[in-house]
């Protein structure tokens, strides 16, 4: 089945309506001493003068020229005491220690893996920061080094935590927990990293037998629900299962639930709505109420209706 649509038409007078720039000159120097701080709804423009550098310190997204703090990105202004920063509307992922990320192995190197994690530099996963087969914490051996590809090979997806930073700013990951490791039984959805907020838990389980890993770098893993392993610590570690490339048997209803959740995430992300567990759950329930096919989610009006319904509830 094939259907043709048109590209959205531009309004005829798109070029004629000149946007009037708000030229309140006295607004240019922002009154940062205002009780509420700079209004968060206002976006900066690169090159815009924010304040004087005598009174304030420049943070990320700003620079100092001629004793003035000037924005270097488009974004919202944030102020902590005397520090002014601009948080960009869109950027690549900025890692912080303790963040949960999903990454893809880009390269296998001696005693380490390079991982693409949607950041400025490839993340690094050391052989010493993964769980090795054998259960107990043990020293890594030469034999482990020789069979690194049996743990992770190029293209593999994994979930990990940011452990530390190297001197050059590259992040070091670790998967030394049963929650972390290789990803199977599902599909990847990529959204802008700014849409994933820091939550209490980034491992979500929807009642439809679907697990979601909302990684902070914008890579979202949607997969079949796997029962939590009861044993704590290293005891429940099964190297065979953790590093396997084989998927479990996934029945048809789970598969369509995964596809449905992936489509919902894509729709919400394209409307630039930050993703939270409650929002995803509501959206899923809304589509189930409508009793619709998974592929109706691909239609524009249906997606709009979904967004309208979910946003109105908030």
């Amino acid at each position, binding site marked *: 089945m*094939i259907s*043709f649509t048109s590209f*959205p038409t531009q309004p005829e007078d798109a070029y004629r309506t000149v946007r009037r720039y708000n030229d309140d000159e006295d607004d240019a120097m922002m009154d940062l001493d205002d009780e509420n701080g700079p209004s968060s709804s206002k976006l900066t423009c690169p090159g815009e003068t924010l304040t004087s550098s005598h009174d304030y310190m420049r943070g990320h997204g700003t620079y100092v020229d001629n004793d003035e703090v000037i924005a270097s990105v488009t974004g919202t202004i944030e102020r902590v005491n005397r520090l002014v920063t601009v948080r960009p509307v869109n950027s690549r992922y900025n890692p912080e220690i303790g963040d949960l990320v999903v990454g893809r192995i880009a390269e296998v190197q001696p005693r380490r893996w390079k991982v693409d994690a949607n950041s400025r530099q490839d993340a690094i996963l050391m052989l010493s920061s993964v769980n090795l087969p054998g259960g107990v914490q043990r020293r890594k051996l030469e034999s482990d080094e020789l069979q690194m590809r049996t743990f992770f090979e190029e293209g*593999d997806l994994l979930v990990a935590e940011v452990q530390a930073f190297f001197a050059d700013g590259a992040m070091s990951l670790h998967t030394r927990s049963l929650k972390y490791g290789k990803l199977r039984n599902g599909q*990847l959805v990529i959204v802008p990293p700014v849409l994933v907020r820091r939550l209490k838990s980034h491992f979500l389980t929807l009642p439809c037998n679907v697990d979601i890993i909302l990684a902070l770098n914008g890579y979202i893993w949607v997969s079949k629900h796997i029962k939590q392993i009861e044993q704590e610590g290293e005891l429940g570690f099964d190297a065979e299962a953790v590093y396997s*490339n084989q998927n479990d048997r996934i029945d048809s209803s789970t598969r369509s639930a995964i*596809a449905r959740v*992936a489509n919902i995430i894509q*729709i919400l992300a394209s409307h630039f709505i930050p993703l939270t567990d409650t929002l995803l759950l509501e959206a899923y329930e809304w589509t189930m109420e409508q009793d619709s096919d998974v*592929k109706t989610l691909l239609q524009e009006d249906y997606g709009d209706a979904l967004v309208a319904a979910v946003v109105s509830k908030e």
Partner: protein
Amino acid sequence: MASSHISKAESSYIQAGLTSKDPQRLDGRNLGDYRAVALETGVAPLANGSAKLNIGRNPHNGSGGTEVVAATKLEVETLEEGAVDKGRVVCTVTCSPAAYPHLSPNAVEDLQYDLTTVINQTLAHPSLHPGNLRIIPGRKSWLLNVDLVVLADAGNIYDALFMAARAALWDTKVPRTRFVQFKARKGGVDNVGKGGDGMDVHQDVTSGFDTRGAHSAADFELPDYWDEGEVLDGRDRWPICITLNLVPPNHFLDATTSEESAVPLKLLLVFSFASIEVPTIQAMRFIGTGETSSPELRQLIKEGQRYAADTFKALQSKLKAEDVRRNQKTRELFASR
């Protein structure tokens, strides 16, 4: 997509979904479904015909999808001795490096070479040659350049290229030309050129050294007319491509990038519908590893023909709708003057 290759687990997840009894795809489509295809003709005002096509554009923010722009441009070609007297068709595919950020410049070049080869071998084949590319018999003809630019690739590039090329060729207008000829009066060689006056030449003698032997000169002119020209001859014939992605025992259409990397073999079938009942196959290619047998192939061609007929009908009605829309727009612009 961050990188072109996917993990083994992802790949087997996709394959298992496609080969199961109740086949399912990552975005919930059926095996025979295309993503939404957006098409617009007449996007390049300086070209003789043009079209923009996008498969799988995100309807909410307009991002993503495979995007191709096709444009045709006619050039006057002076024929050399022994050249074909019917005009030429030359197709070129250019890939924007932005469409393939994970490929090296050399790999992008190889890819556009490969795409060009398939498109050019098919569209420039004598069996599809339009009849009205001749300007002056034996002297001048049109060179029809079909240029395709890949702006983004989110899978199924061949179908997109062929559909865009078809739309642009459908839209192509060949300028009207009028044949003008100058004939020298009998026996009056001097009248042809301005020169010759200073020399004393016998009127009744033809010298062997007289190289001004041309007794006639022919050229063409473009008459003023209300439209841009006539459409290409046989524009119903331009073919469309159906890419069948083979995951035995199933096959599916319009693969996304990740589906493409999980499927080893695809079959390109290019159909031309000069008449809707008896389509002809204009090209056939296998791409990838894996093999098939002749009973399977028989089945695939039959199914492919069915898909192609659906696609052809949909594209045809869209092209006609585009013509109507543009006529309407022109009329409105004219009225507002």
